[in-house]
């Protein structure tokens, strides 16, 4: 019985991980409130480097493999291996610098809150009340 309960709990946790949404967040001074999927992809692949007011975009990611892989799958349609391959190519051809990467979501949230033009992501449950949060949620259009 104990095993069954543990199994069900594990399945619940797995389902959460598999289906949890990753939301895009940004510094409160970022002019955009919505972005298309294509624009999100361009931002994190360093093809789009400026916001609508021409200020610089500073993309951020989390090293935590779980949320990072979910973000890549949901928003970039890329596997983690392809993401690494892409950035190796960009870096060694001098065409770009990968997004700044943090060990934890908390560190990334702090960076986005403090850095003008910063953009990143969190699991949808992380920000309960946007009006009180130090960052804003970017809606997908």
């Amino acid at each position, binding site marked *: 019985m104990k095993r069954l309960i543990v199994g069900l709990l594990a399945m619940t946790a797995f389902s959460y991980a598999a289906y949890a949404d990753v939301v895009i967040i940004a510094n409160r001074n970022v002019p955009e409130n919505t972005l298309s999927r*294509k624009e999100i992809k*361009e931002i994190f692949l360093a*093809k*789009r*480097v*400026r916001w609508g007011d*021409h200020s*610089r975009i500073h993309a951020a990611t989390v090293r935590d493999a779980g949320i990072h892989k979910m973000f890549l*799958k949901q928003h970039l*349609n*890329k*596997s*983690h*291996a*392809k993401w*690494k*391959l892409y950035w*190796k*190519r960009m*870096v*060694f*051809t*001098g*065409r770009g*610098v*990968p997004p*700044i*990467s943090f060990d934890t979501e908390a560190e990334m949230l702090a960076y986005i809150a403090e850095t003008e033009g910063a953009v990143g992501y969190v699991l949808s449950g992380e920000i309960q009340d946007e009006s009180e949060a130090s960052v804003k949620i970017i809606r997908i259009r």
Partner: protein
Amino acid sequence: MKKTVILLFTLCVTLLPNAHAFDADQIQIRGFISQGYLVSSDHDFWYTPTEDGTFQFNETKIHVMAEPLDNLRLGIQLLSRDMGEVGNNEVAVDWAYGDYSFRNWLGIRAGLLKRPFGLYDQSRHVDAARTEIFLPTGVYPDIARELFFSTRGVGIYGILPGNLSYELQYGVAPLDTDGGAVKMADGMLGSKTENIENDYVIAFMLRWDTPLSGLMFSFSGFSMGDIVQEADIGKINTSTFELYISSLEYEFENFTFSSEYRHESVETSLNGNMSLMDQILEAYHITGSYRFTDWFELGLGYSERYTDQDDKDGDRFKKIGQPAAKAWCKDLTMITRFDINDYWIFKLEGHYMNGLEGVTSELGDDPSEDWFLFAAKMTFSF
């Protein structure tokens, strides 16, 4: 050069515990060391003694990049490379430029630039950035990289409405007498080149990311002004050197498929009155790969290359008593890549070859048209 490699290796090992490069917002120092082994059943390939087996197949790169202003990025990458008779681990500048971005649709670069050419040429000597050890040999021959690889000049780039992105460059190709292009020409003509220069190169790339996520097309190429070689036999002038590549890539999660077609026009004369070459080279490849796990990727590729699209059977070679198979190279490739961890990669690759284009050793009376090339490579990057 050994000292340089040892120094770079020591630097890598020292940096390993902290190997994400330096502060991401300030100065970045990154690099890699690749060491490979090549062996073939017959023939030497691309001026490398593959028939006996060789470790003369390595690349080392290190770069420094800084962003002193929000709009400005500066960087330089040094390259040391050996591929048989080419490179010989001389340290050279791989790229060095300033990159100023005005808008999403307009950035400008100036310096020694990577030339946009096909889907993969810019990462030709970055082993960690691709699945294969050799890029598809038909479309990306490694024998005369200096003709294709870099432009010393200026360029603009950006993204455009309609999912388009572009890049344009204008400058000269940094040619030198130790390069594979000169080696190839001197090998064919029995000459010795003392100096080589070119007037200009105009390069472009237009890329369309289609509405189907992961599917893209691109069209890229370049045209070079006169390439003049001053040799002991006279002045060798390549008045036409134009190259175009149409590319398609589809990437879905762990699966990647790509195909490219290359069209290259060359016209070369000696002393302005004797035609040495006037032909169109043609090549294509089809390559697919699948990443089964975080650490293992398997790929399969096929490419064909013809030195003259009007003489795919090699009649021109037969007429002068040489093997017809010098007119083509067909390459069926099995690729494996093992990502041991974030820093170490190991690759194994087998090429079943048909044809003698690209073979650089002496051909006997009855050279084998079918032969096998095996490649192994280990890369450490940080």
